[in-house]
């Protein structure tokens, strides 16, 4: 049935109005992302192709910074340290936060209090946590004077290059598990009780229920936790900057800190931008992997 010109005009007005209003609503976010996300990203890419020391205008030097990265032993050390930090943190964070989530998904006395206590470190600023742990890790600090004395050991937590990276990983795990515990609890609560009831009817033990029901149905949550943990770890900076400045002799230097050192301490902004681009690519790859895997592993409870 053909529409009259009046009807057509009013519909056109309706769609136009809807478009304009829709556009107005998303405009602030678009502007925000353009200024604070897209522009810095594009700028970083541009500066990575220049020789820029902050004090004089950038000079285009093509891929020189990227070439230099390949032979920069400090960059390779920082990259290795970042991977160790990321994997060394992600595995214990995953295991401990899942374990805590399983415990706190059950009803027991004092559950809310304990859950709050485990979550408490999450709300602390990273700088505060780093300062406090610097005191705890001091050779004469509370850790060595309690556990150290009991075990008759006195590790140099932050000045022994073999120990320092793991000391910082320990803090990261301590501060992060509360957050991921909450995510796992949400994931566990989304699993319908029917599956457990059915497993029980089939005679499954608690362990079998966990292994064959809980874990498979938690896969999207697990992947999310794993990937977000890895991304956060690749962006590490605060603990290393406050506690060790990347030392001793680069043992705890990570990419984020190395970018900072190059940009603001050595005034090599172009080179720092090139490192940032490499870090960006690593994180993008991780994110794409996560999207790919979660899409193929989507769980339906129907």
């Amino acid at each position, binding site marked *: 049935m053909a529409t009259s010109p009046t009807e057509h005009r009013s*519909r056109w007005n309706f*769609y136009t109005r*809807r*478009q304009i209003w*829709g*556009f107005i609503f*998303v*405009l602030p976010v*678009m*502007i925000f992302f*353009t*200024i604070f996300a*897209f*522009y810095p990203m*594009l*700028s970083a890419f*541009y500066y990575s192709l220049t020789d820029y*020391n*902050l*004090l*004089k*205008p*950038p000079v285009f030097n093509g891929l020189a910074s990227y070439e230099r990265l390949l032979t920069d032993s400090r960059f390779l050390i920082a990259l290795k340290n970042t991977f160790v930090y990321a994997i060394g943190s992600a595995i214990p964070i995953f295991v401990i936060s899942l374990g805590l989530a399983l415990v706190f998904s059950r009803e027991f006395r004092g559950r809310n209090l304990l859950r709050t206590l485990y979550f408490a470190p999450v709300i602390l600023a990273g700088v505060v946590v780093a300062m406090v742990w610097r005191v705890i890790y*001091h*050779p*004469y600090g509370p850790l060595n004077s309690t556990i150290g*004395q009991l075990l008759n050991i*006195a590790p*140099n937590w*932050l*000045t*022994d*290059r073999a120990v320092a990276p793991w000391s910082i990983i320990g803090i990261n795990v301590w501060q992060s598990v509360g957050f991921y515990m909450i995510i796992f609890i949400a994931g566990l609560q989304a699993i319908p009780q029917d599956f457990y009831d059915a497993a029980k009817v089939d005679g499954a033990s608690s362990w079998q229920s966990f292994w064959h029901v809980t874990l498979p149905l938690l896969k999207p949550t697990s992947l999310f936790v794993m990937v977000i943990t890895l991304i956060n770890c690749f962006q590490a900076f605060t603990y290393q900057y406050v*506690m*060790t*400045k990347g*030392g*001793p*002799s*680069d*043992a705890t230097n990570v990419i984020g800190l190395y970018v900072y050192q190059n940009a*603001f*301490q*050595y*005034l090599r*902004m172009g080179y720092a931008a090139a490192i940032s681009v490499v870090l960006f690519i690593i994180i993008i790859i991780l994110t794409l992997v996560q999207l790919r895997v979660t899409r193929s592993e989507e769980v339906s409870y129907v």
Partner: protein
Amino acid sequence: MSTSRSFRSFMMVSLLIIASLLLAACAPVAQPTQAPAQPAATEAPAQPAATEAPAQPTAAPSGEKTKIVFWSHDFPPREKLDRKFMDQFMADNPNVEIEYVLGPGDDVQYITKLMTAFAGGEAPDCFNLITFSTGPLLEQGLVAPVDPKVYGFNTQDELEKTYVIGTLEGFKKDNVLYAMPSEVSIYSLFQNKQMYADAGLDVEKDYPKTWEDLVPLAQKMNKEENGQLVKRAFDFTYGMPEDATSPVLSVAGMAYQLGGKLLSDDGKESLVNTEPWVKSFQFIQDWVYKEKAGNPALTVAFVDFYQGNTAGTLSGSWYSSYVKEQNPAVAEQIVVKPFPQWKDATNKNGALMYAYGLFTNAGSSPEKQAACQLLIKELSSHPEDYLRDAGLLQSRADLPETEAFKQDPTLPVFLADMEGTPYFPAHPKAFEMLDVLTRALQRVVTEQQDPQASLDAAKAEIDALLQQQ
């Protein structure tokens, strides 16, 4: 159909907005204002004509006050004096208003903040800065030369003669002076007299004159509890986060005593992997691992000193007033002795010198620059107060004649150590060189890396920096 049209329109408008924002963003970034042209390297320092009157701060055209921003690193004993003399300056110059901004006390953080401010076009009009980080500013012409007329002299040479010879060298480029010293410093040996007495020793007789004397002294004075060193006769600082730069000044001083140098005479090559450096690094490694006389994991020595647990540390004249603030009881026990020497030293020098200078931003307006030059003169005109209340040596030639100098028995030691001691080179990459050497030292003391291997790696890094010049 309308949905797809709506989507297309939305996408087009969005892309247009994003593109225009990005184009706007790609406009040239704010650059630090370029300084007026500086004299070429071969030219003699440009001096104002003899008859020319010194620049005076004038009120802004609108009749408003000339407001200048002054930055300095945090050092509480100096801050009180700065504020006092700034208040006096503003009373004498009612058309000038000063905003005094204290940055971090940590040199690395302060320098980072200052350089970032320059990059963002928000640098202060005048500022205090340590010598080994001035290179990039001098190289880019971002600081203004000192105007000797402000000090009542016709030429820079006349002005320089009022300072101890050599102590202004850290602020010069191509023989042009760019700053007046707020502090000239060298590390000498701080000793705790009481701790010597507690160990049955007399600090005046038993203090370590040579590096070799340190080991037997440690054997007499060090105390352990539960396998941990709780009292130390002396300790180095090792480049840990609390004190990243000062260890290099000391270990470089040790190497220079043996004939070592940081750079070749033409400045094109690093010499840090030569025998004098290796021997100095080896000594510190042996101190930690062979003699077990010190430990980089413990509280940094200059903190442990004022806590009364370490009897000896290397520091500057400013340290006395700092200890007095932290622990007056220990401050009363301070005895300062010369920087130890090697028994087979070929040069008699102390730890390499450094200084803080008061600079004027060449990018500030002429009125602000003039106000800054006058303010810097004011802050440089009270060396006795800065010496007495903050322990800061402004190296004026007449300083030893002042009461404050005569009453402090430690000061002649610092001046004597300065004789024949060079500054850590004010090279544009000096700050990075310090970082390279700090990491080399850390490798030697935390992973027991062979000093030669560590210094070979340091040389390679420094040579690469020199090639980037």
